[in-house]
């Protein structure tokens, strides 16, 4: 493991440099926006990475909550399987296929649903017990960082192109802002809580946040249909060469995110080890000088 990290770091740096080169030099200039649009190669991959990390946090939090009781753990597993099966089958039904937004292929939806279910079980397998909580805090922290990048690059992009820093009706940017707020409050809760069950409380908050996200999306979406607003992120289809660079950029960001998460996870793991050692010392230390025998019953 120790050798893997530097190797991956070097690879990531190379990948990031390559992505930067592709973004600044190779990618074609946008017909409408000129070269300003190139910030998209930071903006969009950051967003996708942040959403992925927040999703990981959501899955880890749910698993942490349900494992308190065997019955809830089993129930959750069956629900995920049911979602996977129903989701895949549903995409074959014509009525469902027609209601999908244009451009979204049924096979893509089916694959995504399946991947989500598989993801749930993989996380449950790779991260057991306390590691789930470590994963949750890691993904939340790194996710907030990437989310901040999205929120900073968004207005930076909007200003030169559309003349405004922010449009409240922009679904993506506003949803991202709410997500950022939710996860910052999650991190604040973790820091300010002096409960023995901080991890449970935080997991509960993460679940609330996840339930909130689709509602945020719909509320802004409908608001926008009634009050037409400029779309900052840009809609419509993308030149395949641009898409190509975007995906390279995302890959580089994912590698970078992976490295940061790995470091953070290790840090958290070490921190907990130190705490455990201190706790063990407190447990054994002060009492060692006293002779105390385990007593079973009092004599009468």
């Amino acid at each position, binding site marked *: 493991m120790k050798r893997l990290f530097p190797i991956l770091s070097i690879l990531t740096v190379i990948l990031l440099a390559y992505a930067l080169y592709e973004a600044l030099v190779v990618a074609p200039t946008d017909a409408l926006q000129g070269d300003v649009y190139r910030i998209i190669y930071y903006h969009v991959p950051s967003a996708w990475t942040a959403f992925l990390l927040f999703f990981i946090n959501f899955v880890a939090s749910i698993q942490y*909550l349900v494992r308190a009781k065997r019955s809830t753990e089993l129930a959750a597993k069956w629900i995920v399987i049911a979602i996977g099966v129903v989701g895949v089958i549903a995409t074959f039904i014509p009525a469902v296929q027609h209601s999908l937004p244009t451009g979204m292929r049924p096979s893509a939806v089916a694959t995504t649903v399946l991947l989500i279910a598989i993801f749930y079980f993989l996380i449950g397998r790779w991260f057991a017990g306390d590691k789930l909580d470590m994963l949750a805090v890691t993904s939340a922290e790194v996710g907030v960082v990437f989310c901040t990048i999205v929120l900073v690059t968004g207005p930076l992009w909007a200003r030169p192109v559309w003349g405004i820093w922010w449009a409240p009706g922009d679904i993506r940017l506003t949803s991202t802002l709410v997500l950022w707020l939710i996860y910052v*409050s999650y991190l*604040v*809760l973790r820091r300010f809580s*002096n409960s023995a*069950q901080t991890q449970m409380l935080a997991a*509960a908050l993460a679940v609330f*946040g996840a339930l909130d996200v689709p*509602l945020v999306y719909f509320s802004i979406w409908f608001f926008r249909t*009634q009050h037409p607003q400029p779309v900052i992120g840009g809609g419509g289809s993308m030149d395949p060469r641009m898409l190509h660079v975007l995906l390279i950029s995302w890959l580089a960001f994912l590698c970078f995110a992976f490295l940061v998460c790995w470091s953070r996870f290790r840090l958290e793991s070490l921190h907990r080890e130190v705490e455990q050692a201190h706790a063990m010392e407190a447990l054994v230390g002060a009492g060692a000088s006293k002779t105390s025998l385990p007593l079973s019953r009092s004599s009468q």
Partner: protein
Amino acid sequence: MNSLWSLTLATLVKDIRLEWRSKDALNAMLFFSLQVVVIFVFSFDPLAEESRHIVGGLVWVAFLFAAVVALNQTWARELRNQVLDAYRVSPAPANALFLAKALGNFLFVVVLQALMVPLFVVFYNLRALGPGWQLIPVAGLGTWALVVNGTFFAAMSLRTRSREIMLPLLLFPISIPAVIAMVAGTTAILTGENSAHFYIVLLLTYDVVFTTACLALFETILHAE
């Protein structure tokens, strides 16, 4: 199930009786609400053309302030003599306590709204150009949305430092879709320019989702050490 509701009712009646006896929170809150309205009136000129469009937002921001101050009081009496320990040790279902507190907060905030709304109507010369009766489901569902999560996060904040700031800090981000719906719905009804139908449905969905989540998780929160 029967015992859950009877216990909820008993707890709610107990809380109302306690509040009525001391009246300290209620009086302070009423006066605070009045002040909030007055500050808004001075900050946002009622005679301006645009005020009809922003009044929906003003009213709900005012309600939000008042609600947060009220919500921070939710567990104050229980904290004083560690009464929650008596609850934790008993076989009583935790959700009875939660529902009673949430309903109590709901009634409390509605009383505050009943004071503030006439003031807004008077100062801003409000008239609903759209279907005015729809304001009732918007207000009712919107208030419940704030109160149900607020009661839950108030319980969560019991185990944190800076309790009074933790509540709004946790509540506001989660409440954003509800606030959007409340404000847009109220504005739609007041200006008559749009239909509030979708927002009412959204608020209903929000309420169902989060009431369920709160009921599922409250027991864990109550027993957190």
